[in-house]
């Protein structure tokens, strides 16, 4: 599929007057989490039509959204207590940006806001000045994501190859959640996106991991009973094995 896509673009490139275009494909469309999973690395290949020397490319990979609660820690009678919760809705569980240049050199703030590129643009209300307090909460989400490598930026992570082709390496840390991920590619000219394309990626549990996970969620009571029986048998076997000596 990847080869076909690139080939078709290569042929089309001979027609210079057509509108700029960008396409992309991932080396893998499904990432499987198995028992030995410890993160994954994907390569996104893309092709552009009408790429000029001033154009820049931005690649965004966004994981499934989830609702978060952020609380502030405050010292009370000497111990740290969580207080003042704030809820954030539809926060990406994974978010990474790779680009040919640092984002601020590529795009105007307005363009980023309009296209919801960048965590800051996603997490804060558009066209509103953010209070210092809200900002502290938002930054806490970003820090937490960075700690688990769920959020990342690679200001020079997109490599432009010959003939309008480009490549970006996307890193998925071990803690990634399952679900559908969207990979968006943008072609920027004069601070504004002139072409974009979305492709998707699925992260799924597979094999034994999936079997356990599905059972724990689909038949929780049966799963709990099985856990107990297994543990009791293990205890019994251990007692029997060692008492014989």
């Amino acid at each position, binding site marked *: 599929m990847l080869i076909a896509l690139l080939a078709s673009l290569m042929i089309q490139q001979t027609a210079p007057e057509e509108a700029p275009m960008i396409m992309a494909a991932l080396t893998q469309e499904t990432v499987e*989490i*198995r*028992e*030995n*999973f*410890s*993160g994954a690395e994907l390569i996104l290949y893309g092709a552009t039509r009408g790429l000029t020397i001033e154009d820049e490319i931005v690649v965004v990979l966004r994981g499934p959204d*989830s*609702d*978060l*609660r*952020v*609380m*502030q*820690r405050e010292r009370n009678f*000497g*111990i*740290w*207590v*969580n207080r003042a*919760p704030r*809820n954030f809705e539809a926060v990406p569980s994974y978010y990474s940006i790779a680009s040919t240049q640092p984002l601020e050199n590529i795009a105007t703030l307005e363009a980023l806001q309009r296209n919801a590129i960048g965590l800051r643009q996603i997490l804060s209300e558009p066209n509103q000045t953010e209070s210092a307090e809200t900002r*502290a*909460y938002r930054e*806490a*989400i970003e*820090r*937490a994501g960075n700690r*688990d490598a769920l959020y990342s930026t690679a200001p020079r992570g997109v490599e432009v190859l010959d003939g309008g082709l480009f490549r970006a390496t996307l890193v998925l840390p*071990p*803690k990634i*959640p399952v679900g559908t991920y969207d990979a968006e590619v943008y072609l920027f000219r004069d601070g504004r996106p002139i072409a974009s394309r979305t492709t998707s990626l699925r992260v799924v*549990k597979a094999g*034994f*991991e*999936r079997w*356990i*996970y599905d059972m*724990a*969620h689909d038949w*929780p*009571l049966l*799963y*709990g*009973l*099985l*856990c*107990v029986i*297994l*543990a*009791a048998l*293990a*205890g*019994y076997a*251990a*007692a029997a094995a*060692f*008492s014989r000596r």
Partner: protein
Amino acid sequence: MQIYLPIAEVSVNIFLLLGLGAGVGFLSGMFGVGGGFLMTPMLMFIGIPPTVAVASEANQIVASSASGALAHWVRKSLDPKMGLVLLAGGIVGSVFGVQLFAWLSTLGQIDLIIRLSYVGFLGIIGTIMLIESLSAIHRRSRPDARREGGSVRRKRTWIDALPFKMRFPRSGLYISVIPPIAIGFVVGTLAAIMGVGGGFVMVPAMIYILRMPTNVVVGTSLFQIFFVSSLTTVLQAAQNQTVDVVLALLLTVGGVIGAQFGARAGRYVKAEDLRALLALMVLGVCIKVGFELVLTPSDLFVVMPRGMEGAH
């Protein structure tokens, strides 16, 4: 070698888990305790989410208490009637504890409550145990002042004034069922919230409050722990989906082997020295958890999934 835990959703070194199981197993075999109070904080420390650590540790306690309870059952060194009364309280406590756990999680305070319970209970038990064992060691050094066993006539206490008395032939007791049910309830609640078996609370309570003969105390406590932790595992699995069977089994494999060696090593140490060492270890965990409560955290904000579990 990394292994991805299906429910905890983290990737952990398999030898770290086996080693942790063996290490805690060794100590629990040596001291004759379940070791949940050591294991659960360790699991949280290596990055297992608190909710999964607590629930999976309950599952591991099923395995360790099963082998212990079985051995005591064969030797008839447990009081099944007292065990059932303690269990009745334990079942209510466990159901209550799992609900409380879920409720505190939604408030975002579960980490705090787990830590406070650790500091409170381990601090009290550890201090009492340390004082008791040190005075025993002190008595040992003065042989003339030593008084072994001897049937000291029981004094009447407030316990004897309570109604609903029942006869417990194997313990040789005729007491009210209220104190054992209350003890069972507290232990069941602790099992659900702290991810412990609760032996460290139950054993002293049985000796000092119920005044049960020491030879049936450990067996009866294991009997109760086996059923309460089984119930806690099923409830946590059914309600919160937080039991990681892979994690529990890996810890069990390390644990049973470690426990055998620990039990052997324990024979070379005097009982009161063992109790003193255990008391120091209990206080050590208490202080460590206590520090986490008072030290300034690296991040002054916590981010957690909404309507679900603790911080990360």
